């Protein structure tokens, strides 16, 4: 099922050339904006250069320097990191335990729970903004990092639960029964047998939770009022001013924000592939 399938039908050289040209064109379309962001980030002026040349004329690190020294960049970074990591921990922990229960135990309300998780995914997040705002206000958590952590964890959980439940379902029940015969309690089985086997799926859900929190802008912008409570996306957005936009700073910021996500992707790459193909291919 998996693996490389070599093309079985004969394709002429002309067809192949066309296909490749098409793909190259697509790549350029996808990559050009990214290249452009790099160009702006390394161009000292804050203008919006209209030249098509992707190479910056007088490359410099001035924009990065400004961000890191003149703005409370590290405060925002700290906020983002704390919120994202806490969201990941809380979200993944709760998702793992509930997904396990949904996968293995039969209890009243099980199907309803699964369906309600699914239904919440059908509404755009913005719809939740006003109720969430009211709840946060009521809890006194507006303008608190904890407030965002709670909101992000709960929004990430439904996806994580479905993902993990699907994965747990593929782990043979025999393994748990063998562990039971070996004298393991349900908790031991979960921690020592199920979780270690589910690392790929856990990695996917962890990355998903992290990115949900890391990239989220709207709720953070609404809930956080004091500049030293901003997350990175909110802080950077303030660079896009009402009357002028500091494109250079903004581009440099965008690059800095993406670095952790890209790094995480690379670190978890192996597990991600395993996690996303799980269920189709049983190891």
């Amino acid at each position, binding site marked *: 099922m998996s693996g490389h399938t070599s093309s079985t039908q004969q394709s002429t050289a002309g067809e192949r050339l066309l296909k490749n040209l098409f793909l190259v064109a697509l790549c350029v379309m996808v990559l050009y904006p990214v290249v452009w962001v790099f160009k702006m980030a390394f161009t000292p002026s804050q203008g919006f250069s209209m030249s098509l040349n992707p190479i910056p004329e007088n490359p410099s690190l001035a924009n990065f320097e400004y961000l890191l020294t003149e703005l409370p960049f590290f405060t925002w970074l700290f906020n983002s990191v704390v919120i994202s990591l806490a969201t990941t921990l809380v979200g993944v922990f709760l998702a793992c335990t509930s997904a396990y229960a949904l996968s293995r135990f039969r209890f009243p309300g099980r199907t309803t729970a699964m369906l309600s998780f699914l239904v919440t995914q059908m509404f755009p997040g913005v719809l939740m903004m006003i109720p969430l705002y009211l709840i946060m206000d009521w809890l006194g958590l507006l303008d608190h990092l904890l407030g965002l952590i709670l909101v992000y964890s709960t929004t990430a959980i439904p996806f994580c639960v479905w993902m993990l439940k699907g994965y747990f379902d593929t782990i043979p029940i025999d393994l748990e029964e063998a*562990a*039971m*015969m*070996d*004298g*393991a309690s349900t908790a*031991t089985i979960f921690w020592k047998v199920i979780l270690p086997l589910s690392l790929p799926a856990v990695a996917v859900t962890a990355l998903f939770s992290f990115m949900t929190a890391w990239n989220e802008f709207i709720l953070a912008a609404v809930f956080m009022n004091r500049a030293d409570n901003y997350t990175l996306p909110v802080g950077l957005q303030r660079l896009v001013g009402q009357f002028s936009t500091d494109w250079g700073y903004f581009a440099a910021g965008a690059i800095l924000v993406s670095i952790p996500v890209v790094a995480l992707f690379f670190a978890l790459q192996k597990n991600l592939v395993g996690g996303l193909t799980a269920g189709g291919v049983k*190891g």
Partner: protein
Amino acid sequence: MASVTLTDVSKRFGDNTVVKNVFLDIADGEFVVLVGPSGCGKSTTLRMIAGLEDITEGELKIGERVVNDMTPRDRDVAMVFQSYALYPHMTVYDNISFGLRLRKMPKPEIDKRVRDAAQKLGLTELLDRKPKAMSGGQRQRVAMGRAIVRQPAVFLFDEPLSNLDAKLRVQMRAEIARMHRREGVTTVYVTHDQIEAMTLADRIVVMNFGVVQQVGAPLELYREPANTFVAGFIGSPSMNLFDVDLRATGGEPTVTGKGLSVPVPERLRPHLGDQTKLVLGVRPEHLSEAVDGPHMTARVDMLEPLGAEVHALGDVEGQPIVASLEPDTAVRVGGPVGLRMDLDQIHLFDRETGLALGRQAHRGAA
């Protein structure tokens, strides 16, 4: 070590009774095999002993303790699964020692037991491997090692060999027999393969539709099947069964069916009752070619030469038959063959109840 006692044990899934009123006394150190066709409730019975399945009704004792409501962990039993169920993320060493580590056994003792078991099973070289990197036979051994190190009171096996190829199966069968002789641990072994049952068991329990059909030593089941089901299930090729009617011809009781007629042998006569609708059973190996005075004539449509013997498959007036003939037989496919039964070896069953003449139903059987 311990005995295992099932008293009137039943299991229902919803309205579906899959194990019915099983009585079984397994002695300390005995090797008992549960055998029967797929879906007859063998695994369910085993899993009730293991504690993986609740007991709906009846009482289960291991040793002197009633264990109905005890968790698997407290029952002191170890189980080898059909799928082996090795922990894929652990090395062989960790797989085997998992149960001991959970019981907080001192490390040196764990190490000693694991190495001991590994040596007995030829796994010493593989202790650092993960299950993924091993063959089916090796995984099977690891599964056995995991059970052995626990030194449990009872071993449970659920079709442990059915995922192996034929040659390995024979080899592992011998290994299991050797292990049992060495350790002498009470063992309950489930299989649908009657050859495995015959070769391994001290006693065999034949089940069908959740009901115990007969319990006995392998040869006892072969020689004196209690009913037509056991008669057909034990022995390979299966016993031939023919519907016959009992008649008294000239004072001598005779059974007559389509294309055959034989006198009831002396030893069976005391068991004849009012029932005249019977089933005659004769094993393929108790049929021989007869030149004159055959009991019946079969038309042969297939010959299976096995070297030491030839299995002739065919029919007697539409009733299928298998006969085991001499290797140099002149019988040809399509041709007729006259067959004689060894009358000392034939069986008669009541057609209505299926029971062998003179037999009572097994305790618990409906």
